C-alpha cells in the first residue's frame, strides 16, 4: 500500500514528465524564423514571385527533411528534397555516422535567404543562406556536445516533377 507521500511524489513526477513531453513536442515543431532579402536581380532570367515562393518553401522543407534524416539515421528520407551530389554526400554522411555509432541532431533556428542566381533556361537557382542552427552530437546515445552554429550556406536547387530539389549544399568559409 502506497503512502500519501509516495502518491504525491508519483503525481508530481507525472506532471513533470507531461510538461517535458509538451515542451519537447512544442520545441520539435518550432518553426525557424525566415527572412528573405529583396531579389532585384538574379542574373539572366526574371524571377517570378511564384517561383521564388516555391524555391524558398522547398529549401526550408529540405532543411526539415535533413534534420529528420539525421535524427533517425534514415538516408531514404533525403530523396524527397535532395538530388545529385548533395544527396550523395548526405547519404554517405548518415551511413558513416551509423557505422561509428554517432548521431547528430540539427535544429534550424533562423534563415536569412538571398536568391543570387537564376539560370537563363530556368534549370537551376542558387541561394545563399545565413543560418543559425543547433547541433547536438551523440556517441552511442550519449550527448557529447551541443553547439549553436552560425554559418553561411550556398545551395543550388533544380526543378523536378513536383518541386525544387537541393543539388549542391555547402557551407561557405568565414
Amino acid at each position: 500500500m502506497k503512502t500519501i507521500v509516495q502518491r504525491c511524489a508519483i503525481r508530481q513526477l507525472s506532471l513533470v514528465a507531461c510538461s517535458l513531453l509538451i515542451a519537447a513536442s512544442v520545441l520539435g515543431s518550432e518553426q525557424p524564423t525566415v527572412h528573405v532579402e529583396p531579389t532585384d536581380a538574379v542574373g539572366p532570367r526574371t524571377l517570378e514571385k511564384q517561383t521564388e515562393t516555391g524555391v524558398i518553401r522547398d529549401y526550408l522543407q529540405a532543411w526539415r527533411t535533413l534534420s529528420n534524416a539525421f535524427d533517425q539515421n534514415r538516408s531514404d528520407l533525403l530523396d524527397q528534397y535532395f538530388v545529385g551530389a548533395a544527396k550523395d554526400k548526405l547519404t554517405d554522411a548518415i551511413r558513416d555516422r551509423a557505422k561509428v555509432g554517432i548521431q547528430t541532431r540539427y535544429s534550424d533556428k533562423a534563415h536569412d535567404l538571398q536568391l543570387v542566381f537564376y539560370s537563363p533556361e530556368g534549370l537551376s537557382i542558387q541561394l545563399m543562406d545565413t543560418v543559425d542552427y543547433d547541433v547536438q552530437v551523440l556517441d552511442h546515445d550519449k550527448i557529447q556536445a551541443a553547439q549553436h552554429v552560425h554559418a553561411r550556406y550556398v545551395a543550388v536547387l533544380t526543378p523536378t516533377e513536383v518541386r525544387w530539389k537541393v543539388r549542391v549544399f555547402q557551407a561557405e568559409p568565414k
Partner: protein
Amino acid sequence: MKNGFAFVLGGALLIGQAALAQSGNLTVPRTVEAGSAFTVRTSGAGKAVLYIVGLTQVLRRDIQLGETVPFAAGDLHDAGHYLAFIGGEPTSDNAFFDVTTSQEPAALSFLAKPSRLPVDLHDGISGVVYVFDIYQNLVLEPTSVLFQLSANGGTAQNRTVITRNGVAWIKMNSASKVGAARFVARAGNVIGTRVIQQVPGEPCALRMNARPSGQQLTLETEPVRDCSGNAAPDGTIVTFTETYSDGEATVDVPLKRGIARTELPAHDGATISVATGVVMGNEIHWGSAR
C-alpha cells in the same frame, strides 16, 4: 630514422597550418583545404576521444591528450564548417574551423541550351557552368571560365567569364551558316563540350514560276532560302492556292531539295499565290480574263 621522418612530416604539416584556432586543450587550423593533411594539437593528460563534426563528414579518434593528432590527406574532403571537440571533457573544449574547396577545378557542370536553334539568332544560345573541385565541392573562389562557340568554317566566338559563387553564365549568338557548332567551356584544365545544331531560319523570300502542261499548270518555286542564304530544310510546307471564277483549290507541298513543285488545273483567269510560314510569295494571273 623513423622518428626523424615523423618529426619532419609533423613539422611540414604544422608549417602548412598558417593560422590556428585555440580553445583550451584544443588547437585546430582555422582553415584546411579539402583533402589536405592537417593536425590537431591537444594538451592535458589521459585518454579521450576527439571528434570533428561537419554536416557531411564526421571523424572520431581515440587519442592521448597532450599529443598532436595527425589527419592524413583525404580524411576531410567535404568543404564546410566543422566543429572539433574533445568528448567527455568537463571543460567541453571545442573549436570551429573551415574546410575550403581545392583551388584547382576538376569538374564542370555545363548546361548549354538549346541543342538546336535557327541561324543568326541574337543571344540565342545560353551556357551555364558550375565549377567543382575533385571532391565535388563547388569552387566558390572566383575562377576564370572560357566559353568558345565555333561552327564549321566560321570564326569562333570566345568570351571569358569569372565565376561568382561558383557559377558562370553566358549568352551567345548562333552563326549565320547551318551545321553543328561546338560549344566549349574551359576552367583550368577541365573542358566541357556540347554540340549545338544550327538549322536554317524562316524562309526569307519566296518566288514561283508557272508553265502550261496540257490542261494543267506546273508550278515550281525557286530554291527557298532563309535570310542568310541557307537552303530551307526539306519537308518545309509550301502552300499553293489557285482562285478562279468557280472556286478555289489549295495544295500543300513539302520542299524537296529546296524546291516545291505541283500541278493545278489551268483555269482561264485564275490567280495563283504561294506561301510558306508567314512569308507570302509572288502571285501569277493565268490566261486572258481578269
